[in-house]
């Protein structure tokens, strides 16, 4: 079985976001960027599938040159080889362009299963996977928390608003996983050493047949014209509770003030 896993390289979500006033974009400092933690769940799910059924896990990343750092981490977890689409012309790409670029790689690789996270931790749009499935006319199983492949069919449990659903589909499928799929493994030292030698296939837009006017900012339908930090006017009132539980008075007073009691 061949599993293609999408892995995005994003600014570390645990650090404050900064907006570049000139470009009106989020500052993407490679030194402070990481493999999207959401995609680590996808990688884990992909590795488990191949451990059970045999085959190969390939990852694909569209992102700047520096995204190699994230790709190496995916490889250290166990991804065999990677495809890295990188081109200055891709900067400013919207969700649809990203989906078109990734779909292009899918067409070439012909995987049995494509795995993405339900949404990225920088953009939170969750639009790329479904758009890819639409472009490729492939069944999409989203918000999946368990995957069970049997021959040429897949059975999955997916989260719905107040519970879950069990669904089946024929391969090939595109699956988006939630963080309950399986705890991502931590790369071992051996894994990290091996990762250094694994092949990364780097491609520019010409290699995937995309013209510069269809890529990046130029090809985007969705464009950011302004980005700003919204001042959170929170004046936190911090109270130490020494164990006597006296803070309860303060909480009750506050609850009354905001009319919750």
């Amino acid at each position: 079985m061949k599993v293609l896993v999408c892995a995005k390289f994003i600014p570390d979500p645990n650090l404050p976001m900064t907006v570049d006033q000139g470009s009106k974009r989020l500052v993407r400092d490679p030194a402070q960027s990481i493999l999207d933690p959401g995609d680590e769940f996808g990688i884990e799910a992909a590795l488990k599938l191949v451990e059970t059924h045999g085959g190969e896990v390939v990852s694909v990343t569209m992102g700047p040159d520096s995204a190699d750092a994230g790709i190496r981490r995916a490889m250290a977890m166990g991804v065999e080889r990677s495809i890295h689409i990188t081109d200055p012309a891709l900067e400013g790409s919207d969700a649809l362009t990203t989906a078109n670029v990734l779909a292009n790689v899918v067409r070439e690789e012909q995987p049995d299963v494509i795995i993405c996270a339900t949404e990225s931790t920088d953009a939170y749009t969750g639009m790329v996977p479904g758009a890819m499935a639409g472009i490729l006319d492939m069944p999409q199983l989203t918000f999946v928390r368990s995957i069970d492949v049997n021959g040429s069919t897949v059975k999955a449990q997916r989260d719905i608003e107040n519970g879950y659903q069990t669904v089946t589909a024929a391969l090939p499928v595109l699956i988006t996983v939630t963080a309950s799929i399986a705890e991502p493994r931590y790369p071992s030292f051996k894994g990290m050493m091996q990762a250094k030698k694994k092949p990364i296939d780097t491609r520019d837009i010409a290699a995937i047949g995309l013209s510069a006017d269809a890529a990046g900012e130029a090809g985007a339908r969705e464009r950011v014209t302004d980005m700003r930090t919204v001042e959170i006017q929170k004046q936190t009132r911090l109270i130490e509770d020494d164990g006597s539980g006296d803070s309860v008075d303060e909480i009750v007073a506050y609850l009354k003030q905001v009319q919750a009691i």
Partner: protein
Amino acid sequence: MADKRVLVWTEVAGDAPHPLSLELLTAARELGTAEAALFCDSPSNCVDTLGQHGASTVHLCNDGVFAGFVAEPHVATLAKLVSENPPDLILFPSTFPARDVMARLAGTLQSGVIANATAVSFDGDSLIATVGYGADNEASVTLDDQPPLLVQVRRKAYAAEEVGGSAEVNEIPAVTPDSGNRVQVVETVQEETEGMNLEDASVIVSGGRGLGKPENFKLVEDLAAQLNAAVGASRAIVDAGWVPYSYQVGQTGKTVKPSVYVAAGISGAIQHVAGMGNSQHVIAINNDPEAPIFEMADLGIVGDALTILPKLTERVQSEK
């Protein structure tokens, strides 16, 4: 500028239109003529409700294929509807199924999209939206494309309004995708959640790993009961099996915007904050003064949730 045709995608929740779609009809009316697309297997009196909220037309597809949610037949049917007579804009609510349909439709039609919008307007034919990024950034975003433009709007960005009126019904047949219906629903399990719906609640009490063990989650439930509040949780304790997934607040759980959010034993990881950062008033109880949750709290109590919660519950009860 009431000259745009705006279609609101609607799903059925129980036997009524999903409340988030009703919110979007308000936005649609502000932008032009509001219409609704309702594809389901039992519309009951949803059409009336949609009309009362300002839909002038309801494009209704009543078909058994929509019994369990699968994106493909939805997208095939919607793609046909909007290709024949494209509306200027389709608005999607912030629900899981809406995301599935919108994303796939975008790929199918090669349409640009905006997700996470908190406001939508037109400048001539160009659409401008405000989009939230993380807890404290927002952007102005334009979308230029052939109609229909596709935009997903966050919850509570608009308020549902009953304006009276009734909708014309345009009945349409379900479209089978070219490649057939490839996804089959085997089983749908609704998990019982006690008490109130998280997304509608004006007060939420949430608990996290700081509660120590599953039995202590009752302290959160007890306080919630006294405050007439809904109960939420961090992912850490959902994954640990203390509470069902339906309780989870955050990036991969529910997005909530209550008047008051009480977080007990929750560290305030960015993925949790993604789901509750827009709460109006936040009270945090955590024994670590450095916990990130305090950065967004109005009232922060540095202390032991296990001793504070029961006392608080008792006091709230005696105040009533």
